[in-house]
């Protein structure tokens, strides 16, 4: 039902009951109309009957007038006659009033009114006749009056009576018609009321069944809802318990965090101090780098000087080598001389030997010369060795100077490189100093932030404590909710639809 018509239960109830009320109102209106019709018909009938009775009364009055006239005619006693005459006049006045009344009432019946007008004309003639007779009677001509009565009054009266009867008959017909109409109306009203009542009863029954169905549906839904409520309440309870434990953990975590923040604060402070000292060190390093740069410059200059010295040394060594060579030449000359001397000594010895005994002294001299030559040879050999050693040493020195020159060159390059390195180092140190300044400011900011965090943590702590209280309240609320669900279940069981 919910899926087909998206109408609220309230609207449905209003609609149902409204339908019944409308039906009842309709039935009431129908009944009222029917009864009104019946009433109208009956009123018409009653009126017609009244008219009939009036006409009958009028007829009777006329009859009585005729009788009175007859009595007047017959009576001999004058008092009596006067009395009768008075009676007649009074009656005539009454009849006139009643006639006007009838005429009034006959306004709604035109046919009958015409007839009545004719009656009135006839009645007028009749009344004139009667006046005439009265005058005759007064004159004492009774016979004549009787004749008149017999000849004129009788047929006139008869005529009027017939006409009235005719009208009466008309009204009788009207009454019959009205009667039939009333009967038919009553019958139709009965049928209408019965059908309407039946319809209302049927509608009510349908409405009751529909409402029962709706209520059952609602109760089923409520039951489901209550079940869901129960499970939800238990879930809420567990969740709240978890939240409670979580809140407790949060509280401990907050206290830990607070201590950690204090540590961080200390660390930040330390970092700030360290940064300060690093800054000082960086300044020192920068100064040292400046000094190093100067030293490197000096080193390069020193290297250049060494290079010059090395070049001088190399030149000196080359000269030394040349001198050495000339010494070698000289020594070889000396050696040659020694050689020649040796040969001479040998020749002398040979000659001495040839001279025999006389040459013995010469032989000794020759031997001495030979010894001298040998010694000078040995000396030149030694000199040569020394010269060789010197040459080797010179060569070594040349190599060494070359290596030294190269080393100096390398040293120069290295010094230049180290200078560049020192410059880079200086730049780096400067950058590091700037970084350290930034670190220092950021650590100070950090400290300030930590100072802000501490009260924030306090707030969080309070909030978490409130949270714990709130979760406890939520727990009881969840309990209550669970109980409420249970109660609702019992109530629904009780009002089982």
């Amino acid at each position, binding site marked *: 039902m919910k899926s087909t018509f998206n109408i609220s239960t309230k609207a449905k109830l209003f609609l149902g009951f409204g339908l019944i009320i409308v039906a009842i109102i309709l039935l009431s209106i129908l009944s009222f109309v029917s009864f009104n019709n019946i009433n109208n018909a009956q009123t018409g009938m009653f009126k017609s009957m009244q008219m009939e009775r009036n006409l009958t009364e009028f007829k009777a009055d006329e009859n009585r007038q005729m009788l009175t006239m007859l009595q007047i005619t017959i009576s001999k006693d004058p008092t009596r006659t006067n009395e009768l005459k008075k009676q007649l006049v009074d009656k005539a006045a009454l009849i006139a009033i009643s006639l006007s009344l009838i005429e009034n009432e006959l306004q709604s019946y035109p046919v009958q009114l015409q007839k009545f007008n004719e009656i009135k004309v006839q009645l007028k003639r009749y009344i004139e006749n009667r006046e005439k007779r009265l005058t005759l009677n007064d004159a004492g001509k009774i016979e004549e009056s009787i004749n008149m009565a017999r000849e004129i009054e009788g047929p006139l009266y008869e005529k009027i009576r017939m006409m009235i009867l005719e009208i009466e008959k008309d009204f009788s017909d009207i009454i019959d018609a009205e009667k039939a109409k009333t009967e038919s109306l009553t019958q139709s009203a009965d049928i209408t009321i019965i059908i309407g009542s039946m319809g209302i009863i049927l509608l009510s029954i349908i409405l009751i069944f529909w409402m029962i169905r709706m209520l059952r549906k609602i109760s089923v839904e409520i039951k489901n809802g209550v079940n869901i409520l129960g499970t939800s309440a238990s879930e809420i309870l567990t969740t709240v318990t978890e939240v409670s434990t979580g809140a407790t953990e949060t509280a401990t975590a907050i206290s830990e965090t607070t201590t950690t923040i204090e540590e961080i604060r200390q660390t930040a402070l330390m970092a700030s101090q360290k940064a300060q000292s690093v800054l000082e060190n960086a300044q020192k390093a920068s100064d040292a780098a400046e000094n190093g740069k100067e030293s490197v410059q000096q080193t390069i200059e020193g290297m250049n000087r060494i290079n010059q010295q090395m070049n001088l040394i190399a030149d000196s060594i080359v000269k030394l080598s040349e001198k050495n060579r000339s010494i070698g030449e000289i020594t070889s000359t000396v050696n040659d001389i020694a*050689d*020649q001397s*040796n*040969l001479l*000594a*040998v*020749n002398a*010895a*040979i000659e001495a*030997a*040839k001279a025999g005994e006389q040459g*013995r002294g010469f032989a000794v001299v020759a031997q001495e010369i*030979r010894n001298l030559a040998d010694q000078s040879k040995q000396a030149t050999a030694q000199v040569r060795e020394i010269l060789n050693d010197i040459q080797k040493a010179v060569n070594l020195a040349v190599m060494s100077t070359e290596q030294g020159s190269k080393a100096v060159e390398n040293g120069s390059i290295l010094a230049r490189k180290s200078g560049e390195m020192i410059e880079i180092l200086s730049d780096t140190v400067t950058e590091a100093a700037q970084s350290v300044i930034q670190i220092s400011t950021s650590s100070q900011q950090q400290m300030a932030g930590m100072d802000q965090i501490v009260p924030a943590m306090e707030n969080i702590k309070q909030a978490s404590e409130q949270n714990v209280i709130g979760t406890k309240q939520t727990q009881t609320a969840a309990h209550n909710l669970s109980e409420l669900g249970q109660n609702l279940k019992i109530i629904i069981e009780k009002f089982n639809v």
Partner: protein
Amino acid sequence: MNLDQKILRARAKEISRHKIKQDDMAESLSVVEFLLIPERYGIESKYVSEVLSLREMTPIPGTPAFVAGVMNVRGKIVSILNLKLLFNLKERGITELNKIILVRMDRMEFGIVTDAIAGTLKVYPNTLSAPPANLHGINAEYIQGITPDGIILLNGENLLTNKTIIVNQK
């Protein structure tokens, strides 16, 4: 013992040795010692006219291999022999460092190429030992004997009179 005493002692020893040599001088031979590396040779001084350095030696074509060339010695043309080739020793080439011994007997005179002149010495003939029988290469007739020092003493007379070393002039 200090250094002076040592020197004095060595000197005393030297002097005493010379005395012994001087005593036997009458019976000794004066010998010029020279080197034909690796061996030491000697020749009697009486066959030696002169020792001199090798100067401007001119090789002579068409002569035997042991004739190294000819040399001008103070206006005198002297042929030079290479004893190494004659004695089948290993030849090491001739340079100006080589010395020449001019040997002479009667009219025969020529030079001998030596590696070095060692000097003169006295040799006692009774101390000479005969050349060993297995001495190959060197003709035994050129050798007079071997001194106790191991010097091969050449027979100068045989060397100078040997016909094999005279180049035929035909």
